[in-house]
Each structure stands twice: as structure tokens, then as C-alpha cells.
């Protein structure tokens, strides 16, 4: 074997190795690593061709160029090496029953294992070539190198990168990995050294070049993929933080967590909202989050260590950047220091170590820090930092709260607009119908002026008048509804005697009731102080309904003393109202029996108005079954009318000023 051939082969091998390294640097392809390993082996073997077994050497003596055997042997060797490695690696994976993904570092370790696997095979060959096959140390070295590197590949990558999918293996691998790593490193080193010593060819040192090159490229690829993963993680972390910003308790928890990183001790964050003079809020601390009330605050304050002494009742003591709040009695707000901090007081005389707050139109953020160490010289500076942090945090929370409020107000406004347009549509429909009949009958008189009989003319006039009256009633009702909506209805309370009132109703509706109305006034029934007109309207409407829906039988109106005031019932013997419709009947324009109601000139607003008016004077109106099988309306009137103007659908401004429900409920 000439030196020229040897050198040529070595260079060729190195070139291909370099080429393969370049090819696979982006993909980290296992096959590329294998290729590199194979070519290394090839180069290695070429270098050791001088040590070919005599049988091959003999054959070669007569050749001047590379013979097929020159190629076949090294190829055979480079196949053996990796195969041995792959087989061992797969065996190890199977034995340890771990499933591996393919992380970037695996490429590096692949190479090392590849090398180790190949080293083992090369050791064997070299041993054979140098008549050391019978030496047990040869086989020991080979076996060690092979096994250790296969184990390295599986165990080291798994443990280092925690890519084992089965949770139970992760902990175990973390424990057994280091010794195995060490062992495999030693074995590989041993094998490589042995090989170098045996072959003793200077050019074998060149093998280090592709190895180092691969190491470098692999580590670069690892670094890239690691940073990529880190970017993903930080993005995920950012998005989960952003999600927390939408929910108030979670945001408060975030603020507490951040502050906690700065101080030694406990941190609690309170978000307080003042509504109609009372404070309510949310408290977030180590124990979680809950509505802020006396009990919660007391529990928080109870954790103050005795470092600051027994709870004292001194006034606030401003120290540097923070405020040492030592006495809090009743709700009070301490005027801010020149840094714009404001501490909000909570009931009970307790002491706090530190409290930093920021007041906003929307609410106040109070950062409560309970230190478990004695005060030191750094407290003032610490206070300053925490104060600034609390100020910023308060702004953020206020912004989010405002946004929430606006969103809610908008949603309720949209809903109200929808309701309004529905109402307008219903009203326009209701108004057109009697108008059509009224105009139609008058038009009839005009166009058939000559041909209409007196009876028919009379009938048309009657219809026109009836529909006109219906229209009038409808408009009246609508105006009442509108007035109610806009809170323009007042309660004019006077002394009303029930027996007299009911007699009036009976009298006024006698044409319609045709004497069917029966009045029963309980004994010892006193007078009530209420709005006479409205009460009369309600009772009149109920009686009118009874007339419409119960064509036969008496209509019983009874008044008896109730819990507070009077209970008036109107019962009929009609078909009654089914259970499922008992709330529906009180809605606007709902008429259970459309045609018959129309026939009797109903507006569809009667019960709705009656209930609203009842609420206005402080009472209530419900419906149930009458003993006689019909419907029974129960009207409760308090002894003295309460102007319950607050009842009814609130306007949009009211919706905004209302205390947000989530502050008082336990929902997030």
C-alpha cells in the first residue's frame, strides 16, 4: 500500500466527511451524523491499512491501485460500527422503555455515541490486525465503548433534557444519569486512546478535525433550538400573564407575586371600591383571593408578627417613602403624602407594618406588606420603591376596571336599545289597528252615503266611537308606561278608605260588570295612606280583566288586613291562568287570548301597568288560582305608601354606577 494511495484516501475521506457535516448542519439529521461517523471510520481504517491482517496484505502486494478489497473492507467496517451502535442504542431504549423525541442535543450525543460505537468496532479490527484478538482486554474495551456509548445516547439526553414522556422515569433518570454519563465518557476515552496507541499513525490525529467541527456545529444547532424554545416559553408566559390582566383577582395575584419577589414577608393586595359611602373590595394574599370584609382583614392583620410590638393606636407615622399605618379605626382615608399615596382605612383597630396605596376614581389599590424582620436602615428606600410600584399597579387595575365597566355599560345599553325598538315596533302595531277600524268605518259612511241603511250607519258610528275610545285608552296606557320608564310618576299619598274606594270602582265599572261585581270588605279594616288614583286604576284594571276573561259568574273583590297594610284580591270564575303563563301575563302586549281581548278593547298593557303601579306605591301584584276555579289576583298595599321609585328598569347611567357584581361575589 503506497503512501500516496493512503494519503489520497485519507484526504478523500476527510472531504466527504466535511461535506456531510456541512450538509447536515441545519437538519441535524441522524443519518448525517452516521455518515460522518462512517467516513471517520473510513479514514481511520485507511490509516490503519498498514496493519491489515496478513491475508489481506498478501493479496495487496500485487496491486498498484485500490483493489475492490481496499474499498470493501473499510466499507464493511464502517457499516459494522454504526450498526453496532444503533443496535445497542435501540436495545437500551427498549430496556429502559423510554420514548425519546429528537432534541437538538441528541445530535451531539449521537455523534459521540456513533464514534464510540465505531471505536468499538475499530478496536476489534485493529486487534485482529495486530494479532491481539485473543487478548480479552481487546474485547473488554470494545464492549465497554459500545455499551457505554449506547447508554450515553439514551440516558444522558433524556436526563439532561427531561424529554422523557413518562413522568415516572424523569426523576429516576435524573438520579442514575450522572454515574452513567461519567462511565460512558471514561469508556469512550479509553477506547479511543487504545486505538490511537495501537495504530500509531500520525494522520489519525486529523480525525479530530471533523469531530471538533461536528461538535461545534451541533452545539450551535442546540443553542439555536434552545433559544427558540425559550422564546416560545416566554411568549406563552406573556400570554398567560395577559390573560390574568383581564380578570381582577388574577391581576391582583400577579401584583402580589411581583411584590413578593422584592420583600421578605407576606404581601397582600387589596382593591377597594367605594360605593355610596361604603367600601367593598377584593383581597389577594398567600391564602388566595376573597372578598374583602372585616373578617378577611382581621385574618390578614392577625398575621403581623410581634416585631412591631402590641397593636397600638397611634396616628400614622410617615417614614420616608412609605406610610406606617398603625391605627385604623372605622373607614377613613388618610390624605396622601406628597408622592400621592393614600392609605385607605379599614375597620377594627389593627396594625400593619407597611401599606402603600393609590387612589383612583374607580377604586383604590392598597399593597399591604407584612415584614417578618425588624426594621432596618433600608426601609425608607424599600418603601419608596414599593410605593411607586403600588402607584403603577393601581393605575393598571383602574384601567382594567374602567374598561370592564364601559364594556358592561355598553352591553346593557345595546340591550336596552334593542328592547326599545322592539317596544316601538309593538306600539306602532297596536296603534294602527284601532285606527284602521276607526277610519274604515268613517270612510264607509262617506262612500256608501246613499246606500247605507240607518241601522248600518249607526253601527259604523258605533264602531268608530268604540275604536276611538280604545285608541284613547291605549295612548293613556302608553303614556303611563313612558312616564314610568322615565320615573316621572309620583306618589301622591292621601288617606284612602278601602270600602269607599271599592264602592267607587263598582260604580264606575257597573256598565261593564253588569252587577256581577261583589265587594267584601273585612271588618276593622283601617285606611291606608297611598295614591288613590293609582290604586283605583289597578283595581279597575283587575276587575276589567275579570270581565273580559270570565264572561260568567260573580267577580269577587275582597279587602282584608295584611301583614303591613291591606291585601286586596280580585277573583273570577273564568278559565283561570295556567301556571306557565303566570309571569307572562304581566309583560307588555302579552294577551293570552288575543281575539277575545281585542273584542273587548284591551290594550295588552293593563297588567303590566298594574304591576308597575303596585310596585310604585310600595306593594306587589301576583296571580294564582281562585277557589271557584278561575284566576285570583292578589294586590298587597302597604299601610303607608313608599315611593319605591328605585324599582323598575334602570337607565344606562345607573348601570355604570352600580357596584360591579364581581367585587362582591366569589366569582373571578
Amino acid at each position, binding site marked *: 500500500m503506497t503512501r500516496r494511495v493512503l494519503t489520497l484516501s485519507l484526504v478523500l475521506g476527510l472531504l466527504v466527511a466535511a461535506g456531510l457535516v456541512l450538509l447536515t448542519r441545519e437538519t441535524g439529521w441522524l443519518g448525517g451524523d452516521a455518515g460522518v461517523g462512517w467516513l471517520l471510520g473510513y479514514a481511520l481504517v485507511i490509516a490503519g491499512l498498514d496493519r491489515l491482517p496478513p491475508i489481506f496484505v498478501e493479496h495487496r502486494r500485487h496491486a498498484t491501485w485500490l483493489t475492490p478489497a481496499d474499498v470493501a473492507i473499510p466499507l464493511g467496517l464502517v457499516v459494522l460500527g454504526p450498526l453496532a451502535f444503533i443496535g445497542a442504542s435501540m436495545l437500551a431504549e427498549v430496556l429502559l422503555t423510554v420514548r425519546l423525541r429528537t432534541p437538538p442535543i441528541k445530535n451531539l450525543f449521537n455523534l459521540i455515541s456513533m464514534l464510540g460505537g465505531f471505536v468499538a468496532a475499530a478496536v476489534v479490527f485493529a486487534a485482529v490486525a495486530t494479532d491481539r484478538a485473543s487478548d480479552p482486554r481487546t474485547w473488554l474495551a470494545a464492549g465497554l465503548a459500545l455499551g457505554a456509548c449506547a447508554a450515553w445516547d439514551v440516558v444522558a439526553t433524556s436526563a439532561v433534557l427531561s424529554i422523557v414522556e413518562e413522568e415516572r422515569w424523569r426523576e429516576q433518570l435524573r438520579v442514575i444519569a450522572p454515574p452513567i454519563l461519567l462511565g460512558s465518557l471514561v469508556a469512550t476515552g479509553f477506547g479511543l486512546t487504545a486505538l490511537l496507541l495501537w495504530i500509531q499513525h500520525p494522520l489519525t490525529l486529523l480525525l479530530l478535525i471533523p469531530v471538533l467541527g461536528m461538535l461545534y456545529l451541533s452545539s450551535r444547532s442546540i443553542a439555536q433550538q434552545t433559544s427558540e424554545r425559550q422564546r416560545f416559553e416566554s411568549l406563552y408566559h406573556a400570554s398567560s400573564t395577559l390573560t390574568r390582566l383581564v380578570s381582577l383577582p388574577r391581576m391582583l395575584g400577579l401584583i402580589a407575586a411581583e411584590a413578593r419577589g422584592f420583600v421578605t414577608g407576606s404581601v397582600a393586595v387589596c382593591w377597594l371600591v367605594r360605593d355610596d359611602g361604603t367600601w367593598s373590595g377584593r383581597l389577594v394574599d398567600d391564602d388566595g383571593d376573597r372578598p374583602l370584609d372585616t373578617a378577611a382583614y382581621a385574618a390578614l392583620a392577625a398575621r403581623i408578627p410581634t416585631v412591631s410590638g402590641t397593636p397600638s393606636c397611634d396616628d400614622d407615622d410617615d417614614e420616608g417613602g412609605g406610610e406606617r399605618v398603625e391605627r385604623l379605626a372605622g373607614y377613613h382615608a388618610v390624605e396622601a403624602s406628597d408622592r400621592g399615596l393614600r392609605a385607605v382605612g379599614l375597620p377594627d383597630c389593627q396594625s400593619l407594618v407597611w401599606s402603600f396605596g393609590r387612589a383612583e376614581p374607580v377604586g383604590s389599590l392598597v399593597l399591604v406588606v407584612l415584614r417578618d424582620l425588624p426594621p432596618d436602615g433600608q426601609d425608607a428606600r424599600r418603601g419608596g420603591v414599593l410605593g411607586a410600584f403600588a402607584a403603577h399597579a393601581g393605575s393598571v387595575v383602574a384601567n382594567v376596571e374602567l374598561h370592564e365597566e364601559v364594556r358592561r355599560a355598553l352591553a346593557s345599553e345595546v340591550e336596552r336599545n334593542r328592547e326599545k325598538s322592539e317596544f316601538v315596533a309593538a306600539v306602532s302595531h297596536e296603534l*294602527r*289597528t284601532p285606527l284602521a277600524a276607526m277610519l274604515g268605518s268613517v*270612510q*264607509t259612511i262617506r*262612500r*256608501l252615503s246613499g246606500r247605507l241603511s240607518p241601522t248600518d250607519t249607526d*253601527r259604523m258610528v258605533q264602531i268608530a266611537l268604540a275604536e276611538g275610545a280604545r285608541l284613547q285608552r291605549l295612548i293613556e296606557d302608553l303614556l303611563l308606561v313612558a312616564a314610568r320608564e322615565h320615573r316621572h310618576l309620583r306618589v301622591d299619598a292621601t288617606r284612602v278608605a278601602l270600602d269607599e274606594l271599592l264602592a267607587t270602582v263598582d260604580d264606575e265599572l257597573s256598565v261593564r260588570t253588569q252587577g256581577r261585581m261583589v265587594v267584601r270588605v273585612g271588618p276593622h279594616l283601617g285606611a291606608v295612606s297611598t295614591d288613590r288614583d293609582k290604586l283605583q286604576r289597578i283595581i279597575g284594571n283587575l276587575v276589567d280583566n275579570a270581565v273580559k276573561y270570565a264572561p260568567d259568574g260573580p267577580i269577587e273583590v275582597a279587602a282584608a288586613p295584611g301583614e303591613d297594610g291591606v291585601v286586596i284580591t280580585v277573583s273570577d270564575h273564568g278559565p283561570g291562568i295556567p301556571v306557565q303563563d303566570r309571569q307572562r301575563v304581566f309583560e307588555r302586549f302579552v294577551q293570552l287570548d288575543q*281575539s277575545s281581548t*281585542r273584542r273587548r278593547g284591551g290594550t295588552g298593557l293593563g297588567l303590566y301597568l298594574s304591576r308597575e303601579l303596585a310596585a310604585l306605591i310600595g306593594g306587589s301584584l301576583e296571580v294564582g288560582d281562585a277557589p271557584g276555579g278561575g284566576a285570583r289576583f292578589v294586590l298587597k298595599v302597604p299601610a303607608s305608601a313608599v315611593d319605591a321609585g328605585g324599582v323598575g328598569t334602570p337607565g344606562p347611567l345607573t348601570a355604570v354606577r352600580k357596584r360591579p357584581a364581581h367585587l362582591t361575589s366569589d366569582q373571578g
Partner: protein
Amino acid sequence: MTQRTVTRVFVVDDDPHLLELLALNLRADGLEVEAFDHGLDVCERAAIEAPDVIVLDVMLPDRDGLSVLRELKHDPDTRDIPVVLLTAKATDEEVWAGWSAGADYYITKPFELDELLRFIDRLGRYT
């Protein structure tokens, strides 16, 4: 050109007063009127009686007027009877719904009596 003489009219409306005055006017013009205050059997009766025009209100107590209209237009016996849709609903969607359900004419309340009667009269020259 066949002339179709209008002799019989169906009037369907849940408002009894309107029903009454429509019937009165149509009868005064010499037409035979059958009045309904419900929609349930209008189609059935129309198939038997074969009216020349049907005046139909959209709001009926027992079933939707538009469904009656659709039924009328679906049934081969009643398909060719012109239908005048009468209603207090006047929004664009409802008018469109009426037209697309197959109404031949659409009048909103309150209406000019003359307009309705003129239309019915014009049907007398229908080809």
C-alpha cells in the same frame, strides 16, 4: 280574453270591527262575503268554495297569516286565487316576507278603503 267576474270574497281578520265593516262594504258592492276571524280552516274552505279574492290579515289568533298564505299558494286548488295581505306591520322585512310568501297585494293598516275595493274591482278584469 276571459273576463273573470269577482263575486265571492273571503275576508280573514281577527279584529271583529274591521271584519264587520269590510264585509259591509263588499256586500254593498254586490259581492258575496265570507268572514273568518281565525286562520285554521281558511284554506280548506277556499278549496271548496273557490272564492275569487281572499283578503288576509297577517296577525291571526290561531296561526300565522303568512303560513295560511303559503298554504293557499301551495295547494293547486287555491293557488290561483289572488290574495290581498292586510296588516298593521309595516317594516321592510315584514313587507318583503309578505311578498315572498306569495301575496298578490299588500296593504298596511290603516288603509284607504277605496284602495282595497278598487283592487278587488280590478280583479274583475283579470286575465
